[in-house]
């Protein structure tokens, strides 16, 4: 199948620029980067995509058995990187895609120049000597939440937004373009996201890495971000003023500035910058 269609690939920016790949997390799609990615188009080759099963990807390519682990998502990244023949890739992964990026880096480390992990968590569920922030029961509650909102969270939201209930076509367009997910796939993706444990993978990352952490993130608390930065050998930790889990939407300027400082720096020799 065509890779572009499979992942709704969007390439922009400088054709000969260093590739900068943005990966969205669970719950939405590449629209998560709409206020950040354009700032890098002047000197980077910007690569946006949807994970299979999310957004405008080809959901017929979704296989419940295959996507039962994060490795499958990482393999998809590797496939995009190799088929587009990308080298020196700057990979920016939000939320679960931070760990997907870590896994992809382990598969083809030679392809990556820098990793940026936005709101990463290697494990969401508390464990002995580790606070992820959630109990397993909480994850099942999320799955229930997805089910309760299955009645049409995507279809129900859009029409009124444009203030034009008598022109449903407008709403239709919005519903289709933002964060559209098949409920069964959303459930499966939630399961694989929030039940994964990738703590052991962190120490094996070879690529210089920036951890971008929000101040008050209920999904990935500050302590978890620090845990990630502590385990990855060549890493930098930056605490943003932004709160919540989606600084790419709530604080695009601050996020862009922190990203730019890291990706435009010539060398990043493991110095930890913390505020």
């Amino acid at each position: 199948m065509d890779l572009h269609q499979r992942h709704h690939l969007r390439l922009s920016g400088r054709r000969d620029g260093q590739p900068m790949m943005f990966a969205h997390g669970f719950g939405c799609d590449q629209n998560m980067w709409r206020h950040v990615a354009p700032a890098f188009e002047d000197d980077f080759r910007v690569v946006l995509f949807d994970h299979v099963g999310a957004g405008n990807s080809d959901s017929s390519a979704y296989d419940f058995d295959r996507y039962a682990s994060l490795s499958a998502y990482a393999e998809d990244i590797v496939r995009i990187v190799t088929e587009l023949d990308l080298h020196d890739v700057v990979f920016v992964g939000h939320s679960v895609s931070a760990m997907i990026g870590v896994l992809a880096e382990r598969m083809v480390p030679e392809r990556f120049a820098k990793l940026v992990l936005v709101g990463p968590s290697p494990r969401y569920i508390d464990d002995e000597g580790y606070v992820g922030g959630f109990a397993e029961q909480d994850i099942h509650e999320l799955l229930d939440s997805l089910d309760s909102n299955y009645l049409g969270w995507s279809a129900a939201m859009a029409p009124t937004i444009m203030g034009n209930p008598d022109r449903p076509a407008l709403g239709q367009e919005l519903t289709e373009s933002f964060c559209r997910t098949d409920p069964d796939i959303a459930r499966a993706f939630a399961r694989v996201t929030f039940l994964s444990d990738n703590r052991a993978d962190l120490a094996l990352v070879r690529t210089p890495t920036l951890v971008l952490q929000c101040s008050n993130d209920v999904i990935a608390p500050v302590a978890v971000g620090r845990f990630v930065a502590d385990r990855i050998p060549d890493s930098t930790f930056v605490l943003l003023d932004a709160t919540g889990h989606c600084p790419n939407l709530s604080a695009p300027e601050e996020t862009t500035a922190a990203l730019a400082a890291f990706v435009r720096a010539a060398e990043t020799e493991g110095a930890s910058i913390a505020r």
Partner: protein
Amino acid sequence: MTQHEFAREAFLDALLDDDPEKLYDRAPCGYLSTSPDGRIVKVNQTFLTWTGYERDELLRRSFVELLTPGGRLYHETHYAPMLRLQAAVRELALDVVRADGQRIPVLVNANLEVDDAGEPVVVRIALFDATERRGYERELLRARQQAEASERQARELAQTLQRTLLPPKEPAIPGLDVAATFQPAGDTLEIGGDFYDVFQVAEGDWVAIIGDVCGKGVEAAILTALIRDTLRAVVVGMHEPSKALSALNEVLLHHETDRFCTLVMVRMQHGPEGWTAAISSGGHPRPLLIGPDRNRDEVGGPGPLVGVLDAPEFRDERVALRAGDALVLFTDGVTESRDGAGFYGDARLRDVVGRPLESARSVVDAVFQDVVTYSGGPTRDDVAVVVLRVPEKS
């Protein structure tokens, strides 16, 4: 104006001038305002009454903190991004945790207000108590999940039963090239009415049948089994297919069902001059005889439906098959398959089997493929095709 009307007007005027504070505080919904990053800056009395919090406890706290852990995950992964991207969310189902730890299921609507420069200023959140609705929705959800599970079971059962009504493996007759295909109607939970069977009576003496039982489902399956067993029993010592069909007619008439079937029966016998076919049809599309020097004609004695008339007359037609000749048996799922506008039809079937085809399998596959292409997807009816072919050197 009557006194009564005056009183009414005065009352409505008073409502129009209702104290905005009361309108806000006593609204029949919880009402919150937060900063764009979610900190609560204003909350109405209804919400405080529902949740048991003091106003001061809530101010400056984050809205997301009032949700259950699972709800927080949902908030951060769906609600917050949608609010930012679309400036509004509608009818989100969440649970608010009260001061005493109890949960209230709510439906949440929220608007993000922006200033002239497009910068977010405030989020206004209305919450509606959805306790009863949520209980009802859970029941609906459970019912949906049960329905999906039952549907899966029914489909599996139908498929299993269907398989038992067909020969377990590709039929084979020594000295003949035989191939068959059966495709149940697309997207159905029921057992279809089409069937075929190929079995041996004696050495060099074989029977092939293809048929279509009226109706679908368990009754059709029972009838199919009855037909197959009856024919297998009566053909012993009864050479003419027409007689077998008469016997079957008798059995169906006495069976406690008003169902009937269409059927073609072919008796293939090998003698000194090669293979001879005796063919009789009971209301079924007659087979086509194809081969190097054949005209793709229908063959077989025509007759009425089986299981309807008291004394039907079935007839036999005998054909001596030559090397390269083949009989194409099919059900009306082939000729009556639809493309939305018309029917597949006899002419198109004749075209397909008229192409040079070197084996029984290639004839079967060509017909089936062409029907699928014509229907543009899964067929609406069962499709069965059986081809009996005399090899060039037999």
